[in-house]
């Protein structure tokens, strides 16, 4: 029990003293996860919007598949990306394995279905509302898609933040493709796993505190955005 108290004390000291090792891990975590979110949005938003606006054969099956992909197991994704990026794999020539690049790819693969599926739902709801008016105004498809994305921006930001939450808290995929190499691919979740197994609870707890604070901040930001948007009737 005393060990735990001491560990908590040390953890807070590390956080408050802005320990350089701790900051390095946090910075890499944010860099990897934010990059993954950006890629997921670049792919997921257009895909979600296209499915929301489209009427094509197999649409329902596509939506079911997309929703199912939201639950992709991180270790399986990690393994697949590992196979692709390993020297013997088709993308081995890129030499990305055990680099932050590989971790970004793994997280992007994990959260792109989340962004696509959730944005499909958000955009489809708005599209139902706007569709007849857009048809009456003969709005071209590209303009309609842009208008839907813009008008749903607050809800879509929530979608992006949900993707970020999933990415930053994920450990299975990044530990396989990143390898948890000190000063190179060590992020918060992999560091917590490693330090816990080594018995260095202080650093693990410090990272845990930062991770929880980050999760709370993200949720608070989502709530604040929602409230602002509702207050101004943009949501």
């Amino acid at each position, binding site marked *: 029990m005393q060990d735990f108290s001491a560990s908590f004390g040390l953890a807070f000291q590390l956080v408050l003293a802005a320990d350089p090792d701790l900051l390095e891990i946090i910075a890499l975590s944010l860099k990897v996860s934010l990059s993954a979110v950006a890629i997921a949005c670049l792919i997921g938003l257009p895909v979600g919007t296209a499915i929301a606006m489209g009427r094509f054969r197999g649409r329902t099956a596509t939506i079911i598949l997309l929703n199912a992909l939201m639950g992709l197991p991180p270790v399986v994704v990690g393994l697949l990306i590992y196979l692709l990026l390993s020297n013997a794999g088709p993308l081995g020539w890129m030499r990305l394995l055990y680099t932050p690049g590989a971790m970004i790819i793994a997280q992007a693969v994990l959260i792109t279905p989340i962004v696509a599926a959730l944005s499909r739902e958000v955009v489809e709801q708005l599209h139902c509302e706007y569709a007849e*008016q857009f048809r*009456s105004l*003969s709005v071209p498809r590209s303009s309609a898609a842009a208008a839907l994305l813009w008008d749903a921006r607050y809800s879509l930001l929530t979608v992006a933040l949900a993707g970020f939450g999933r990415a930053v808290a994920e450990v299975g995929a990044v530990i396989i493709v990143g390898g948890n190499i000190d000063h190179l691919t060590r992020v918060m979740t992999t560091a917590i796993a490693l330090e816990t197994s080594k018995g260095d609870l202080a650093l693990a707890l410090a990272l845990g505190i930062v991770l929880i604070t980050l999760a709370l901040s993200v949720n608070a930001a989502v709530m604040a955005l929602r409230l602002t948007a509702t207050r*101004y*009737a*943009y*949501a």
Partner: protein
Amino acid sequence: MPDGTTVSQGRTWAAPTDESECLGEAVGLVYRSGDRTLIDGIDLQIPRAGRTVVMGANGAGKSLLLRLLHGLLLPSAGHVRWGGRPLDDALRQQQAMVFQRPVLLRRSVAANIRFVLKLRGRADQARVDATLDEVGLAAHAHQPARLLSGGEQQRLALARALATDPQVLFLDEPTASLDPASTAAIETIVNRAHARGTKIMFVTHDLGQARRLADDVIFLHYGQLAEQSPAQRFFDNPVSQAARDYLDGRLVIRKSSK
């Protein structure tokens, strides 16, 4: 039968209007949903000038007819022509529609107008300001559109429709849920547009409003064209039994439905 009056008994039809005075026409228009025939073989010609008011009891097919004429729905049979041409995107761009519940973008009042002007390639600020000024919403330009009152929202929807200078303006019960002052404001704007040469197609249940606005009346009864006549004649001396019953406030329930 008085001149200029058309009575459709089932599918019987006699064209009432001179071709040069005809802006649009529907020929053999049918719309089915499942096994129900909601618009049943309507033939009509829409005069080039004036305000045409579409009337009929609930479920008569007024809103459906408007959507078919504007091309928002495709008919199950028959066709619609405007200026002798089948309806396409280019023609629809010369038309505009205002719905019973205004559909406003989640943006500011001015941005709603700017959106439609940008689509037509004439989104200058002066035009946005002039459009809002015309409907009395200039002071609300920077407010979120959805925070306007019901009457203001409908005026904005009307302003957005008129911003495109439509040749034909369809209005589907635009004042159904508005108070008398807001209704009067909408009617004033519609009359101004009509005076500038815009063809008005107006659906309403309100007999007083129909008397105020109509130059001619299309009366529907269970998806069929019961009567099309000049307004005065329709209100003074309706030819069809369905129209007489409607004007007298009698509820007519059809015994068998298609």
